[in-house]
């Protein structure tokens, strides 16, 4: 019987959550984008109001459900629902942000419960057009807050980047992930 797993993508509006999920998903991503009608409009024409949903179908029959949490704080009631029983958390922060550390802080606070139980990786998007020091600031911010900094630049449209980020998440959950049990038994 296949087992469903869940990975949550979070981050501010325009950080690239929907794109990252689209990049990995095996199905057409279901999203609840709506025409942006507030301050978000200057960033992008549509925005996610409830969640994005994609699926990775694995060779062994398992499924990984990819949920994108809405970026605006007023939809934060969705965050608890989406993170319930999640395997791990991917936070995307844009290097174009005026204050990326403050933006990261929003998600560190909102997902503190999940992070205490499992793993977090942070992807820095839009690095070509943003501040080159963003990644370093985020690394320092996580370090100061006592959280192991796993922060990498990613292009949300580029599958190897997003895949590497998710892979880092898996190895943060279990550094020996994927090792053949028989080989492991032999090794030990």
């Amino acid at each position, binding site marked *: 019987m296949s087992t469903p797993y869940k990975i949550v993508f979070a981050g501010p509006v325009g950080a690239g959550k929907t794109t990252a999920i689209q990049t990995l998903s095996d199905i057409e991503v279901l999203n609840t984008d709506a025409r942006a009608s507030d301050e978000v409009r200057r960033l992008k024409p549509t925005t996610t109001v409830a969640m994005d949903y994609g699926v990775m179908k694995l*060779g062994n029959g398992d499924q990984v459900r990819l949920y994108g949490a809405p970026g605006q704080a007023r939809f934060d009631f969705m965050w608890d629902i989406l993170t319930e029983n999640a395997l791990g958390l991917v936070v995307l922060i844009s290097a174009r942000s005026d204050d990326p550390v403050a933006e990261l802080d929003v998600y560190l606070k909102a997902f503190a419960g999940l992070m*205490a*139980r499992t793993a977090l990786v942070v992807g820095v998007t839009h690095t070509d057009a943003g501040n*080159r020091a963003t990644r370093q600031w985020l690394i320092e911010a996580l370090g100061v807050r006592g959280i192991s900094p796993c922060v990498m630049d990613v292009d949300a449209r580029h599958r190897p980047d997003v895949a590497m980020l998710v892979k880092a998440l898996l*190895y943060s959950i279990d*550094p020996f992930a994927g090792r053949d049990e028989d080989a492991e038994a032999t090794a030990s």
Partner: protein
Amino acid sequence: MIAALAGLPARDAAALKIFLGMAFKGCAVVQATVAPGRALPRADVCIVDLAGLGLADWSPKAEADLLLCLGGQHALLLGTAGNATWQDKVHATGRHGAQRLAYLAKPYGRDAMREALDSLGLGQGSGAATAASPAVAPTEATSAMPSVFASLQAVRTLFPELQRHALLGKLLDLLASAQAQELRLTLHQTLIVHPRQGWVAHNTSPDVLARLARHGQTAIGMNARALDSEDDFRRRLVHMTARENLDTFYWRLALDSLGQGLSTPSRDAELRLVCMPGFTRLPGVDDLALQLAAICLRLPQTLSSLRAAFPEADPQAIDRFVLLATVCGAGRLRLLDAPPRARHKPRTERRAAPGAPQPHRSFFRAMLQKLF
């Protein structure tokens, strides 16, 4: 909290060390050497493998020896499941005066270990985290972090061939600097390193850099200067055509400089990552590098324990990772006195939110296959 481990096989001790660091914030782990007639060092709890102390079978003498060894301290005794005598003794006595004892049968899991330690009252102390918080680095390890300078000295001692690469050597000298530094490569080609902001900018091509890295004796005469005024910094930066993260730049340059061959370290060393290297911007990153990084980001690991953890991996690949992670600034290295020796592998507990499906090996395998 201080935990003293005694009699445990190296693999179990390494796994427990990682577990305790994760489950009890700030927990320091002492691996105690047991000598006949001597008590274990002072600790909040002793975790003792009875078989490892030669006390697998209960007898009045074995019990007396154990109590002498514990010196009145709280202890968790690890033994076999069928060892009814020890179990009964511990359950019957439970306490020897103020001393609390618990028995845990092998093989045990994370939850059973946690429960056993809680039964000794360790989960209720102020130093204990409310939940295993693997994302939180133990404060003990953080306080022992070597400086960048000391770390670079350590890597130079461990891998003396670094001294032969002048450009890499020059760049490593700049890594400990707080200010932006300019290094003039040729008349028209320069490089700016900003360790504090984590980036490098340059106006040269990757080919020239790779050539300089490999045949970098010309770099001996290169001089670096601090860009200490904002004006100077901005003026110089305008001429730079490329900018990238410092860790990925240094990682690649070190690979170009050193090639694939490395000397075998004559000493053991301990690596602690301060951040995950920027693997998305490095070519040819394999699973092993990610795994090693994930482990060293959690807790400091020695070269020998990493080799034991990945016995199927080329030891040179592990050495190379340790070197590259250090010279790229993502890791801090500390030399240890002992030479690297074969040890059993450490085990780490998997993280998963309570209620979440516990990921099984076939899931991870399938997921990793899917991602690459």
